[in-house]
């Protein structure tokens, strides 16, 4: 066990999988000579060479599709999107090709590929560079979507994603790359599709994932000071979704708050809120609450951009609502 940063954990996963399997290649903008826009791939070009760590031009649709073709033909590419915002240029490749090839070929092809990069708001980046886009990708059957919140989960889920025979959207967070945590050395796999109880509690279930997990845990500390004992379910995988862990928790606490930094309309958060409202109807003592990003493009001004996102105050308020406290 080592205490390392999120980016080091992701790098360890890439390094170990590239060492294990020569079908694994990394391609994207600035992944090689520049060592990665966020330094996740630092040192990999030197270690594995330009045949396996490929700097691409700024051509998201092109290199995303190239990764898909290489995957169909037998490689296991990891495509780095400098940010998920730029993946919008490549969405047709992901949705029309990666997600559909298996189905429309009657199961003849698989597309073992990972698309990864930072997702969600960071700071001071304005509307086009501060989007939480998971709900778009989670909409489509044929894709897996994962969103780890800790360095250990990041390493274990990235290794699982690279070994998966399906296209996986792997969501990181710019604000979390420097976050430190204990990470198992060597072989550490977190299976896709399993949620994790990040804190056990009995009074209320808070369902969240990715970067907001930290904020939720901070909010839970202040709630604990008021005698409220919250359970925190980290989804980790959005597709497939571990509904059972969520429902079991709600059956225990009878109250549920969803915290999701994406916008609320037709989002992962609103979908999970509907699932819980439906599946746990008899268990619930209060309507499910959703704490989401505001339904606005992200502004540049810092006070406004913070107001556009979930906050400890919003989370505490939602918890008190479901507790009628």
């Amino acid at each position, binding site marked *: 066990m080592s205490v390392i940063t999120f980016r080091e954990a992701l790098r360890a996963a890439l390094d170990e999988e590239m060492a294990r399997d020569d079908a694994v290649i990394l391609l994207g903008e600035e992944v090689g000579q520049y060592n990665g826009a966020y330094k996740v791939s630092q040192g990999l070009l030197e270690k594995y060479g330009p045949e396996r760590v490929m700097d691409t031009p700024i*051509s998201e649709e092109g290199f995303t599709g*190239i990764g898909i*073709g290489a995957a169909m*033909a037998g490689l296991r590419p990891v495509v780095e999107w400098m940010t998920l915002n730029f993946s919008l240029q490549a969405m*047709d*490749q992901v949705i029309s090709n990666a997600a559909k090839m298996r189905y429309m070929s*009657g199961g003849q*092809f698989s597309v073992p590929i990972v698309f990864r990069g930072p997702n969600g708001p960071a700071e001071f980046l304005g509307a086009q560079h501060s989007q939480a886009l998971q709900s778009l990708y989670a909409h489509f059957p044929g894709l897996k979507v994962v969103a780890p919140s800790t360095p250990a989960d990041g390493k274990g889920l990235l290794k699982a994603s690279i070994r998966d025979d399906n296209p996986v959207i792997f969501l990181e967070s710019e604000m979390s790359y420097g976050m430190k945590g204990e990470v198992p050395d060597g072989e550490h796999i977190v299976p896709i599709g399993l949620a994790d109880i990040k804190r056990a509690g009995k009074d209320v279930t808070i369902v969240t994932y990715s970067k907001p997990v930290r904020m939720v845990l901070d909010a839970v500390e202040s709630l604990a000071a008021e005698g409220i004992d919250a359970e925190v379910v980290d989804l980790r995988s959005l597709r497939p979704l571990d509904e059972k862990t969520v429902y079991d928790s709600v059956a225990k606490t009878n109250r549920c708050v969803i915290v999701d930094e994406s916008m609320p309309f037709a989002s992962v958060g609103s979908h999970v809120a509907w699932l819980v409202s439906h599946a746990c109807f008899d268990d619930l003592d209060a309507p499910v609450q959703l704490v989401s990003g505001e339904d606005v493009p992200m502004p540049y001004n810092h006070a406004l951009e913070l107001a556009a996102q979930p906050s400890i105050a919003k989370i505490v308020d939602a918890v008190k609502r479901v507790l009628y406290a």
Partner: protein
Amino acid sequence: MASGKKSGGDAELELELLRTMLLIRRFEEKAAQMYGLKKIGGFCHLYIGQEAAGVGAISAIDLGRDYTVGAYRDHGYALACGMDPKALMAELFGKATGVSKGKGGSMHFFDAARHMFGGNGIVGAQIPVATGVALKARYRKDGGVVLCWFGDGAIHQGSFHESLNMAKIWKLPVIYICENNQYGMGTDFRRVSSVTDFVVMGHSYGIPGRVVNGMDVMEVRRDVAEAAQQVRTEATPVFLEIKTYRYRGHSMSDPAKYRTPEELESYKKQDPLLIQKARLEEAGTLTDEQYAAMDTACKATCDEAVKFAEESPEPSPEALYEDILA
């Protein structure tokens, strides 16, 4: 037709190319008939008139090692790759015995074993995919060359331009084939292209290219074989513009009113089947009787394919949820 080896001037091979083109012609006519009877639904893009392009090009590569990645006008490529007409017709009928289990349809013929990577429905979106298959071939140094098919309608998509740039900088073994049938759906390519010589577009990425007469199957075969040789020996992608013509509308719903009857008739006089038939007759390797027998056999194959499709089962309700994930 089995994956052809390069052996120009071989009478048996020339006959085989004619037979494959004739099979495609009869298959497409049968598909049109079945569409009219509502046995086939949705979009159905026929290859009639363009047979020499697919047959000539695919005969020039070895599908044990090489690949073909195409767009949605894919019936001809599939038959040229040697896929079973029965399973293709069953796919058009949406049956469980179809090549894609009835879940792909006309635009999504695939055959992994024959390196036939679609059958892709979004205009131009297969071009990066084909380029990625070539990346695999280069990475594995397996000697494979990829035929990447698209039409004159797709050449203005960003996917084409992004792919050519990367294929050139990475020296990928891919032949980009613009099958110019002169109409992107209903739009004459001259109305929407800044250049009418598409080879210029390859040149702008430093990629060598040439124009190919798409009405003569032997010329297509020769030029694609040379291009494949150039890809292998010079470590460069190659661009080919195959000039061709489709006799039918863009799809079954298109009456093709954007062109004159005279234009269509002028192309029918240089029909790829007639050209190849005349060549073989002049060489004394084909008689009218032999051609008639060949035609009868192709029609019988298509009739059998329809019978097979008719008698095949529908996909089970469970199939709805199958083959989404590996």
